[in-house]
């Protein structure tokens, strides 16, 4: 099980990498490689050129300001997991990252690689959707920014031009006091989730829901925001009845069938896990 032959390029500057990407038709960008290398070994993908961006300067790093979290696309998952400022600003990352693969894959895997691979159940993709992240990409035509909601084009395919590289992920911080919940269901520790649910939730002084975001991963081609439930909860006291109503909406989502799990089971899980994540978030927000 060896990869097909390819040429290897290790650009030292972003412009050089973009140049290589636009020059070669059948090229693959190599970030942490924790999905791509396996796909190369299995010959699921057979690029002629592999452009390794691990040597590019300035693509890795985390900065946390009063209202923004900025993460370079080549930041390793393990670095994110251990970044104290990020964990204070967005503690849901810690809960989510414990589910991301294994120690060895987090040591290499990057947030940008995870986003561009766009596995429907990937935790980091779900978190970016939860935070309404803004993605910065660079290409021949220069730099552009796009909202996370527009990033997935279709199944496991980001809306990037062939010469574009994801460089930066910007998350607006929830600066108000808020709670979070992240729950996922997988058969084994570290497996891709069958369903994962993330919740951010803030209460007003009266104890009613002031702001809420809910994301469900693993159900469809890309993680989806449960807007109906978010709207339902705003202004409400988060008692068991309303939380049950909110999680019931998760049972109505479009979900995919595959060899292992039916759409019905995924919807069922989405409902169950949404309830659990909401309860966690409410408890944490109080």
């Amino acid at each position, binding site marked *: *099980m*060896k*990869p*097909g*032959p390819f040429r290897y390029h290790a650009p030292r500057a972003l412009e050089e990498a973009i140049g290589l990407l636009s020059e070669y038709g059948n090229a693959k960008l190599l970030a942490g490689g924790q999905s791509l290398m396996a796909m190369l070994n*299995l*010959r699921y993908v057979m690029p002629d050129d592999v452009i390794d961006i691990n040597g590019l300067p300035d693509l890795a790093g985390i900065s946390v300001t009063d209202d923004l979290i900025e993460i370079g696309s080549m930041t390793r998952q393990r670095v994110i997991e251990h970044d104290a400022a990020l964990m204070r600003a967005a503690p849901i990352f810690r809960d989510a990252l414990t589910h991301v693969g294994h120690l060895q894959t987090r040591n290499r895997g990057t947030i940008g690689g995870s986003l561009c691979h766009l596995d429907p159940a990937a935790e980091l993709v779900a978190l970016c959707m939860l935070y309404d992240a803004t993605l910065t990409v660079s290409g021949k035509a220069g730099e552009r920014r796009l909202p996370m909601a527009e990033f997935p084009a279709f199944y496991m395919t980001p809306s990037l031009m062939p010469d574009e590289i994801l460089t930066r992920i910007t998350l607006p911080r929830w600066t108000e006091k808020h709670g979070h919940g992240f729950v996922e*269901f997988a*058969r*084994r*520790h*570290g*497996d*891709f989730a069958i369903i994962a649910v993330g919740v951010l939730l803030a209460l007003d002084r009266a104890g009613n829901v002031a702001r809420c975001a809910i994301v469900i991963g693993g159900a469809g081609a890309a993680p989806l925001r449960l807007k109906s439930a978010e709207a339902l909860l705003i202004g409400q006291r988060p008692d068991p009845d309303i939380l049950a109503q909110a999680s019931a909406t998760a049972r109505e989502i479009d979900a995919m069938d595959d*060899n*292992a*799990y*039916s759409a019905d*089971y995924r919807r*069922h*899980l989405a409902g*169950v*896990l949404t309830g659990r994540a909401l309860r966690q978030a409410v408890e944490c927000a109080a």
Partner: protein
Amino acid sequence: MTANREIAVGQEVIGQSVPRLEDAALLRGKARFLDDLHAPGQLHAAFLRSPVAHAHLRSVDTSVSRAMPGVRAVLTLSDLRPSLTADRIPLQFRNNGLPEAITPFVLANTELLFVGEAIAIVVADSRAEAEDAVDAITLDLEDLPPVADVRDGLATTAPRACLDRANTYRDFELSYGDADSAFGDAPCTFQLSIKQHRGAAHPIEGRGILAVPDPLQDRLKVWSSTQLSHEARYFLSLMLGLDETQIDVAVPDVGGGFGAKYLVYPEEIAVAAAARQLGQPVKWVEDRREHFLSAIQERDQYWTIEVAADTDGRLLAIRGQMIHDAGAYIPQGINLAYNAATALPGPYVLPAYQLSVTVAATNKVPTIPVRGAGYPEGTFAMERALDGIAERLKLDRAEVRRRNLIPGDKMPYKTPMVSRSGAAIVYDSGDFPAIFAQALEAVDYPGFEARRTAAAAKGRRLGLGVGCGIKGTGRGPYESATVRVGRSGQVTVHTGAMPMGQGVKTVLAQVCAEQLGLAATDIKVICGDTTTVPVGLGGFASRQTVVAGSSVFRAASDVRQQILVAAAALLETDIDQITLNGGFVACPGTNCRFSLRDVAEIAAGSPGYALPPGVWPGLEATVNHIPEGLTYGMGAHAVEVEIDTDTGLVTLLRYVVVNDCGRAINPKLVIGQLHGAVVHGIGNALFEFMGFDAQAQPTTTTFADYLLPTAPEIPRIEAIIAEYPTPTNPLGVKGVGESGCLPVAAVIMSAIEQAAGLRYGQLCSIPLAPPDLIAALDAARG
């Protein structure tokens, strides 16, 4: 040999958890597995495999691939024919009553029968280049309808899995007592439909072979990661038209077997034939995808049984049918189905039994035994039946088992069944109710209801399952051992036994060391090398400690006697005055002592001089011990589970296994075997599923899709050794390599039923995935 050691060793070696001889090399990365071997000039092989489950193979175009960089040869069956005596590998292991033309081809002929069947072998300078050339071969195929489900293949209108033969390989019936009359007026009768699936073996090291031809001498040296080196030599010689003097098989360190390496495969023949044609060494290392596609599996059995019991819950009879998915070929007989059928009664009194078995074809990779070898399937059926009785008669599940277990005073217990050799199945020793009671005590069975209630108060749903199994171990007809004291004083054991992780070398060294007054570390053990071991059968059926251990024991006893005779000549005293300890023979009370090396020197003789009276040339004995039938080790299991009724998640909280090993040579190693087997059973119960679609196309061909259990899913396992020495071998030992996996799935299902409030005996399809549990809960709610 350690010089001048005074510590007493020998008599206390057996029964001690001595450190493994194997560990240092493995822990330092210095062990030698198949792919670690490098022969000068070696080339690398890759196979083109069938992309479809059933098709006519009209033509293979290798012209492009032959011209690719690094490619030395691209060979199909017709290209290999000059080096082969036959297209098909003969049936391995004698078996009567099977049709002709059912064994695999070395490479596919004109009809492709499963996805993964090897069609062509590419030999190149590197594996990567060989795979490039595989991708460049084009096939002209005409699709044929496949049989994807063994049951569908039995319909009169079904397509044939192979055009030349019917889909049924063989029907047989196992029957004793009068089951039909027993059902006549039985107060408690019910039916169970059982679907059992066991996946593939998945040793972490796949199969592999390195064939090194020696054109000068017309010889072939083969290294194979196999469980049966002597059978490999025989089948290679048969297929290549060589005799035993022309071919040797050696086995490097083996990274697990579990049944997958207990077969001589088409790939091995093809690699050896290609190496001979090219006159250069060729290596093939199976990758994980190839293991999914082409290594044997156990897969599917469908049981439909009726159970009859009296009002006390005692079994009266079981009757029914079983359909066994044998796959596209029969490489080695139908022992898997036969074992499953004969395993059903297990450690229980079953007065009447009648099972009709159909062994039939699918367009899937062939099935032969994986660890457990059919016994888990038979055990599952019986344990589900006992739970069904408990459910219907409102009896405690443990009580039902107590009432049906063969009483301790009935040993030895002759069952009405015969093994595949035709010999009666006789349970030789053990107190089954006592072993069962020990498991209940270890899991605190009486205290469980309180634990369950306390957990329920916190919203947690717990369940407990108990059950038993019994495995025939130590299968014959023999195993070889030569024990030798070399002139250096080094003691060696040569045997046909084949280690693949169990610690066989350590165990055999312990047995030998005890006889010779040495420590296990003093003994070198050489396994399965056909250059130094003339005959042998290898590693299977939990047999090595039993059969090879007995051979080593007897050979070492003989060598001990030879040492004493020669020592008597050296020490000029009577044999009964001599001690043999720590590498020395001595006369207690005198300063007279000699090393084993000195003794070996006497026995080696000196040219022209007579050996001392009674001294036999060389200190050496060979014994090929022939066991008297199988020896049966009974085990009792208990598991506590917690279920999440919302997601269907099953969490195992604790696991207890008590298993009779006759006599533990090395208790730590026995426990290790039980741990591993239990976890294999957990995989079968909850995780491992080899999926195929309606076209018999495999859908789980990576470790991301086929779920082997990992550390977080596994609970603490409390493994307890019971010792009921068997009279059937001189060591009193029983095998433990497989027995730990027998009732695992059954006890887990029983525990889940309790936790979920389902009917006992209801969950009859394994593996049970979370959606299956949700579906069962939904159905129960109506």
